[in-house]
């Protein structure tokens, strides 16, 4: 069966990769460099800490994906020769504000209670933390640590997935926007901006923020919400940060990446000095040694959020074979998307129950 995937980011390509591994015929339409491209601007975390409050299935799904990541990364490296720089040594969240810390610990406690399979977080006070991360500053009250969390080089991942999909025999159309997607008989057709038409018996809409326009054409609600995050990167330093955090991590070639801002700015993807300086000053509070370090670049990118923050995996009721797939955590979930979500798409006997992630949960 031929599958047309609209969206050449990490989410669309993880599915394309899973499908080509099953010897399916796959065509991917990848938008242009001017699109919002969350896959090119993200922070690269593989993260369970703090996720799944109010949805234990999401916590389990996340945990399962993290457990699949080592073999996923190894398989990609073997196939493509590209090292995605995976490291899963555990993740820290550093706190300089008492209320934020208490609220966060309470949410970790609730997630753990609702999903006993999840990793057990540890709370470290300043003194305990100082023993394993001696570089922390006096303003750090403590940290929560989640074993098994980590990070990856998101650009290497995108490159490896593209290469893996290409080697798997899929065709990728680059720089092509889908203007319209429609059904004619048993086929789904996509009209590209150069008026070229592609058709397949299965269509997966995984176009990030672009899904807002495309998913309703197939009868989905298609609500995706942009949330702006800004990121900074410093000059390269010797490797000293073993554990990434939600706001500070050291990339493989030595730069310190700083991020974690959340702003509701609609589709505005420009960074601003105020946020850049807030992010930098938080990073210096946590690691005073960064004060004299040069900042090289800053940028903003738009997260692709759903209304409740959990993924949407939906097959159309009226257009069987048409799927709408979206999530915030495309990096963390890349491993499971390439395996279990792919099984669900093709409807194999190993297909998981994903009814929790149906779009119908938003119908009140």
């Amino acid at each position, binding site marked *: 069966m031929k599958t047309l995937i609209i969206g050449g980011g990490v989410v669309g390509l993880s599915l394309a990769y899973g499908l080509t591994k099953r010897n399916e015929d796959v065509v991917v339409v990848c938008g242009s460099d001017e699109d919002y491209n969350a896959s090119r601007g993200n922070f690269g975390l593989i993260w369970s800490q703090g996720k799944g409050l109010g949805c234990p299935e999401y916590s389990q799904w996340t945990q399962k994906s993290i457990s699949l990541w080592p073999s996923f990364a190894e398989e990609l490296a073997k196939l493509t020769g590209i090292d995605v720089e995976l490291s899963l040594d555990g993740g820290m969240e550093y706190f300089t504000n008492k209320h934020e810390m208490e609220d966060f610990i309470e949410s970790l406690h609730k997630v753990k209670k609702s999903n006993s399979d999840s990793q057990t977080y540890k709370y470290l006070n300043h003194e305990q933390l100082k023993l394993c991360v001696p*570089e922390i500053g006096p303003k750090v009250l403590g940290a929560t640590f989640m074993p098994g969390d980590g990070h990856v080089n998101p650009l290497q991942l995108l490159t490896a997935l593209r290469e893996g999909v290409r080697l798997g025999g899929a065709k990728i159309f680059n720089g092509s926007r889908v203007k319209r997607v429609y059904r004619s008989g048993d086929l789904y057709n996509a009209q590209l901006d150069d008026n070229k038409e592609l058709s397949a018996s299965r269509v997966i809409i995984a176009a990030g923020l672009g899904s807002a326009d495309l998913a309703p054409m197939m009868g989905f609600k298609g609500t995706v919400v942009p949330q702006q995050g800004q990121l900074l990167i410093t*000059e390269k*330093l*010797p*490797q*000293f940060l073993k554990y990434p955090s939600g706001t500070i991590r050291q990339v493989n*070639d030595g730069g310190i990446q700083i991020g974690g801002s959340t702003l509701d700015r609609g589709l505005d993807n420009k960074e601003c000095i105020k946020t850049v300086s807030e992010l930098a000053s938080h990073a210096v509070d946590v690691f005073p*040694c960064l004060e*004299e370090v*040069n900042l090289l670049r800053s940028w903003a990118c738009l997260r692709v959020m759903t209304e409740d923050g959990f993924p949407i995996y939906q097959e159309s009721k009226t257009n069987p074979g048409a799927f709408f797939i979206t999530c915030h955590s495309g990096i963390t979930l890349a491993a499971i998307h390439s395996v279990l979500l792919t099984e669900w798409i093709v409807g194999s006997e190993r297909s998981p129950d994903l009814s929790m992630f149906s779009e119908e949960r938003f119908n009140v």
Partner: protein
Amino acid sequence: MFERININENQVDKLSFTFDGKVVSAYQGDTVAAALLGAGYKCFRETPVLGLNRNPYCMMGSCYDCLVSIGGRNVQSCMVECEQGMVVERVSHTKLTGIRPHEVS
């Protein structure tokens, strides 16, 4: 390795600065990178993670390979004009940040 072209020694102002404690002579208008290359330096710094030798590559502010430390900050030596008595040091991240690198696996 590098030599100056078509220059009338009598028409330029000369100055000197130090790199890692050693005196380097330069002409007014030289960038620090040009002066160091002219003085025969073949390695400006070592990369922070793998410790590989680095020299200027682009000479136009783009590649960051020519980093040196001036006044306690890491700067691109190709973007800084030499000044008389300037103290230029090799980049030392350990000194700069107090970082104790853990072993790179």
